[in-house]
């Protein structure tokens, strides 16, 4: 069969890290092609290249054998490539019809936008999907599922032949998933090619024809789904050994310092309990976006959970935590929160290393007191963390990613803190800095600290931590010592829950 789209030898790097490395992919008409892989395997980047959001560093894209290139989602759509992303791209203040035709609105004889025509055509397109939405309804009034259907209708209306669905079912309930699957089958029967990214195993086997597995930015294999079983698919997604990056685990742990009981992230999620003791590093593992971050951020007031009690060092943490003062209150209790987004939420890029480290010490004091320079603390921190910089007055923006991450971590190690909540301890950091950060966190735990960490990289969690909680669907589905864990076991625990 002649392929509809061929992506040939595509590579793409962000900063220093290769997100996609020489991947080729063929999409055939009338098939649903599953794209699978662990977090950070490069699925989303590859699809964003096909959707025109990113441009590849190298490699080519062919449609019906002709080479095509485009630099925006709109141009991609003109080539018949339509995308439904996790983060939706519709404009909430426009109607469904306006979103469908935005940028190519039909005009009346008098130069006005032909709303009647737009609405009628939109109603048709929606009807084709079996939807009875009002074309004049604002997108802001639609449910997430409805918005996704509108995006699909948008593609149908634009006469797209390739549909990319990036985790379309993540926010849908079972009934909506059935409706969506019906539409996907219908598109397939009309000879369209569909790329389907999902972590839900049963959906893959129910609806997909072919599966391609990515790992670390490379393609592992492309196989017919009929030849695969869930177990063999998971094996294909994992297939890697532990590196020799990690310090030895804790031999003994102290008393419980963070105790979470009957915690419900939202009204519908199952309650869970977890605890962290001094001297140990505990991980929140699982697939991305399953509630790990929501839980961690509810401790600092950035997310409002449904219910639960949290005790820190014997003191009850009042829920919900105030957004304005939550971080300061935790800080006073000796708890530090290291945010995931180093550049936006973590560091002051224009300020010096010294200022970035000292801010945690400074912020413990009242506004009108004298700000000490903390030279000793800063120098000790820089030395013990091996931060490579000319001196402490260098702006943080001049450092490499690894050294920036160490400065961020140093801020908390320099302060009087014995519990660390960390999101993504080594995001965008090279391998050498990674192993140093692991060593620092282990030292912190050995000195009586407690660490609760979440990361996209399961392998990092297994190597770094003492104990893991597997989180799926906003609750804890398994707990295991890290020594017994493997990516396979964690993935299975998450997916079979």
């Amino acid at each position, binding site marked *: 069969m002649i392929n509809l789209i061929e992506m040939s030898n595509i590579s793409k790097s962000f900063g220093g890290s290769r997100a996609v490395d020489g991947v080729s992919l063929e999409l055939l008409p009338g098939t649903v092609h599953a794209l699978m892989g662990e977090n950070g395997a490069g699925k989303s980047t590859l699809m964003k290249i096909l959707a025109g959001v990113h441009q590849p560093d190298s490699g080519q894209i062919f449609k019906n054998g002709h080479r095509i290139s485009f630099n925006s989602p709109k141009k991609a759509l003109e080539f018949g490539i339509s995308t439904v992303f996790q983060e939706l791209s519709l404009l909430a203040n426009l109607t469904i019809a306006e979103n469908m035709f935005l940028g190519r609105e039909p005009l009346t004889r008098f130069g006005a936008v032909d709303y009647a025509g737009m609405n009628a055509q939109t109603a048709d397109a929606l009807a084709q999907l079996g939807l009875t939405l009002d074309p004049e309804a604002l997108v802001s009034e639609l449910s997430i599922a409805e918005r996704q259907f509108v995006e699909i209708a948008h593609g149908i209306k634009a006469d797209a032949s390739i549909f990319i669905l990036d985790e379309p079912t993540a926010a849908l309930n079972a009934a909506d998933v059935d409706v969506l699957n019906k539409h996907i089958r219908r598109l397939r029967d009309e000879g369209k090619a569909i790329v389907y990214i999902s972590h839900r195993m049963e959906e893959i086997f129910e609806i997909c024809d072919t599966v391609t597995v990515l790992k670390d930015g490379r393609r592992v294999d492309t196989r017919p789904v009929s030849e695969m079983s869930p177990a063999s698919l998971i094996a294909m997604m994992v297939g890697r050994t532990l590196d020799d990056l990690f310090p030895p685990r804790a031999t003994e742990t102290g008393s419980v310092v963070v105790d979470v009981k009957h915690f419900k992230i939202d009204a519908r999620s199952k309650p869970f309990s977890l605890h962290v003791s001094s001297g140990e590093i505990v991980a929140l593992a699982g697939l991305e976006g399953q509630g790990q971050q929501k839980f961690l951020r509810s401790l600092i007031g950035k997310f409002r959970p449904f219910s639960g009690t949290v005790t820190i060092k014997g003191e009850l943490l009042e829920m919900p935590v105030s957004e304005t003062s939550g971080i300061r209150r935790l800080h006073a209790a000796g708890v530090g929160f290291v945010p995931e987004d180093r550049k936006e939420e973590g560091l002051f890029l224009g300020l010096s290393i010294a200022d970035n480290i000292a*801010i945690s010490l*400074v912020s413990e004091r009242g506004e009108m007191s004298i700000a000490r320079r903390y030279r000793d603390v800063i120098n000790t921190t820089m030395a013990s963390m091996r931060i490579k910089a000319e001196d402490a007055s260098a702006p943080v923006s001049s450092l490499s990613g690894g050294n920036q991450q160490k400065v961020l971590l140093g801020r908390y190690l320099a302060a009087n803190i014995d519990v660390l909540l960390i999101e993504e301890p080594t995001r965008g950091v090279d391998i050498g800095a990674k192993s140093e950060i692991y060593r620092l966190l282990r030292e912190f735990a050995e000195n009586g600290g407690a660490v609760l960490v979440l990361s996209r990289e399961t392998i990092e969690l297994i190597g770094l931590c003492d104990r893991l909680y597997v989180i799926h669907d906003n609750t804890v589905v398994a707990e295991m010592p890290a020594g017994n864990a493997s990516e396979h076991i964690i993935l299975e625990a998450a997916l079979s829950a």
Partner: protein
Amino acid sequence: MNAALNHPILRRALSIPPSYFVFAMLLFVLWVARPHMLNLNIMGIFIRQIVPLGILVLGQLLVMRVRSIDLSGGGVILLVNYFISSGLFPGASLTFFIAIGLATGTAIGLFNGYMVARRRVSAVIVTLAVSIVLLGFVQFLSSGKPPGDVPAMFGEIYNTRWGPLPTPVLFWFALTGLMMIFLSRTVFGRYVASVGESAEAAHFAGVPVERTVILAHTLAGFIAAIAALVQTASIAVGSVRVGLDLPILAVAATILGGVVFGRGEGGVLGPFFGALSFALLFVVMTVFGIDEPGKLIAQGLIILLAAIFYGLRSGNAN
């Protein structure tokens, strides 16, 4: 052009606040055109005229460092001027006037800060509206006519000298020094720097962001009241128009001094020279016979060009 802008020497030059160059340039123009005016006695008189502006700049740079703005200074000056010149408090002492002036300014600043930081209303809208409310209020109280005379004791202090320099000028210099120490040595100064650099990161680092913005506005109101006291002493009479153009001049001087919405590269000295530049600019304009409209145009262009200058630079950094 981008490549040229990234050249190290040019980058170094770009990080120097424009106020230094403007100040030096104006000094040169004056030296060529009217060399005899360049002596401490004459310059002291000219600089004395912009002391209220210079003081107002100290508050403006504070709020602009935390990415806000305060255009209510004109209203504060009017109100304080009215309190002193209207005879509303007959026979009151100097201390009383100073106390009520400072209390008024502080209260207005606190209100601004609350609206901006807690209610998240646009700072321009809030502070402009406050200024208009105060303007209408004062004009109503005084029926649109100048209220009366300022007690003589204000003028007496205002006209004293310390050596060649007028007391108000020295007072301004001292306040500027105080602000430098305050911003570089206190915890609050660090908070201001961190909120200006990134409010998001400051929040995650445990800095009380809202409180910092409120305090910055409150201090700016307090400082505006000091400027009002000096301004009142300088004109010696009540007025219903005094000081209305000062806030925008203060914004111009602050931007010229390298402090633009969060970026504090100019520190306190940059805006200080920004205010001095305006003193020289007014002298130069008078020398060349440029009147009020020309000054308005110059103010506007200075803000516009300085903002474009920084906009281009930040656009390059991205």
